[in-house]
């Protein structure tokens, strides 16, 4: 009962008008890109447009950005608006407070990426119909991505004073650069595992010649089983670490008088 109320309050807090604007903007970005592609391309193949934009924009930008915005807001929003004190001085174990906030962030992220996927499919496939778009699979994998990224940024939010900066650097530095690196380096990026589960036909970043030159390094492949294992491990590992940190850390604003 208390958890449900806390989740409801967290959701309400998470989906304030400013955050709803972020949801709206993020969810239409892939569709706008798809429309631009359609208008610019000489020949339009809906499945190719969908695959390219889904891989680059929905997975590579919207998912990560939504996870940064909502994942870091779990704790920092309460700290910055100085309302965390109301939650931490109630007879609830701290881990339950954090879990409710995490669940609210997940709902917000999943809603954002689901809308983005549906809008993208509509933009790419209309008027011929959206049946050919792998919407269900993509939303499922994006939800898994929301769990993993959400958990990572939840941990950052419990640990860092400015998790948003870390999140943006991670999203647009690490997650953009590392999947482009040859060979086993891609194993260091969560996005590589998500793309294994939801493959889209997009050009390989590494040329065949470079692959041959790299030898065994370039032959590293991520299996579906490994992808599931890593993503779930990251989710559980970072969520547990976040709870452990949240249980012991002080979040009172330092405005002593």
């Amino acid at each position, binding site marked *: 009962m208390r958890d449900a109320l806390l989740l409801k309050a967290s959701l309400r807090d998470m989906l304030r008008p400013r955050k709803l604007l972020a949801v709206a903007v993020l969810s239409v970005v892939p569709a706008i890109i798809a429309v631009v592609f359609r208008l610019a391309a000489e020949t339009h193949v809906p499945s190719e447009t969908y695959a390219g934009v889904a891989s680059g924009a929905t997975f590579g930008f919207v998912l990560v950005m939504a996870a940064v915005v909502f994942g870091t807001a779990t704790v920092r929003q309460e700290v910055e*608006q100085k309302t965390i004190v109301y939650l931490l001085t*109630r007879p609830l174990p701290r881990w339950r407070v954090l879990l409710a906030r995490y669940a609210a962030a997940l709902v917000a992220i999943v809603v954002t990426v689901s809308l983005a996927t549906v809008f993208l499919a509509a933009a790419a496939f209309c008027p011929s119909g959206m049946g050919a778009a792998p919407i269900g699979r993509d939303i499922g994998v994006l939800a898994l991505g929301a769990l993993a990224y959400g958990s990572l940024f939840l941990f950052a939010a419990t640990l860092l004073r400015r998790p948003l900066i870390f999140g943006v650097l991670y999203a647009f530095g690490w997650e953009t650069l590392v999947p482009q690196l040859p060979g086993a380096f891609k194993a260091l990026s969560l996005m590589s595992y998500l793309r294994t589960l939801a493959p889209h036909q997009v050009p390989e970043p590494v040329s065949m010649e470079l692959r041959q030159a790299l030898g065994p390094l370039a032959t590293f492949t991520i299996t579906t089983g490994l992808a599931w294992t890593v993503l779930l491990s990251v989710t559980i590992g970072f969520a547990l670490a976040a709870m452990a940190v949240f249980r012991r850390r002080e979040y009172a604003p330092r405005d002593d008088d």
Partner: protein
Amino acid sequence: MIEFEHTSRWYGQVIGVNDVTCRIGPGLTALLGPNGAGKSTLIKLLTGQILPTAGRVRVLGLAPFANPAVMARLGYCPDSEACYDDQTGEEFVSLMASLSGLRGQERARRVAASIDRVGMAPHARRRIGGYSKGMRQRIKIAQALVHAPDLLVLDEPLSGLDPVARHDVSELLRAIGGEGRCVVVSSHILHEVEAMTSSIVLMYRGRLLAQGDVSAIRGLIDRHPHRIVIDTPDGRALARRLLELPYVLSARLNGPDDSSLEVETRTPDAFYSAFPSIVLADGFRIKAFHSPDNTLEAVFNYLVGS
């Protein structure tokens, strides 16, 4: 109920509180001190928001930090104005009641009662974002009261209130303290708490300066003579008579026509015992009689040496 034992708290190189040892029991106790004295640090320690760097804090016999058993019996009203601005006052208090474990009809009854008790019933269904500072303060007090805690801690609760609301809240806190519950109120404005309680904990620069009844503390300050001001048209004659008493140190006439006599004594109790009989015996006319040193302001100034 509250126990600090050689408690210190640093923020890096900055001292929040330094080696504080004291106990606070049931009733209303005022935590006093100027800005930067360490009041808020002490409150954060006892409400389990922060940990001591050294020493020990016990609230209701338990370590308070992140302890649900303590939080179940604690009501806390922070000094920050921050609230959930998109909620109505009623929703906010109701959420806090739910998080404290109240359910159904009992919750609704307690929410309505605590909102009513702080005089916010007419505004309870308005969004907090539209509240004045005083209304926010009152709704914050309502959420602290809603689960009928044994220990109520309020950080600057009178700040931002208009005089009527200030009086009402003071009366409310005094009533709660009178119910046998422990109420701790912090303030840097001495006259605010003077009307509420005489039990004080005085902080200055992170240290505990004094604790106890304000008049008892005043009595301990024997290096500072106690001043008594008497408004009388018989100033000269009364001064002459009072200077015969061995415990009267000095007498000074002030004001137009020497109508105000200021007497200094180190034993005010003896003076107060003897004074009525002297007045009656010699037929002195007394218009007014007060001691400026009985105020908290005076006690505080003496203790910090200003």
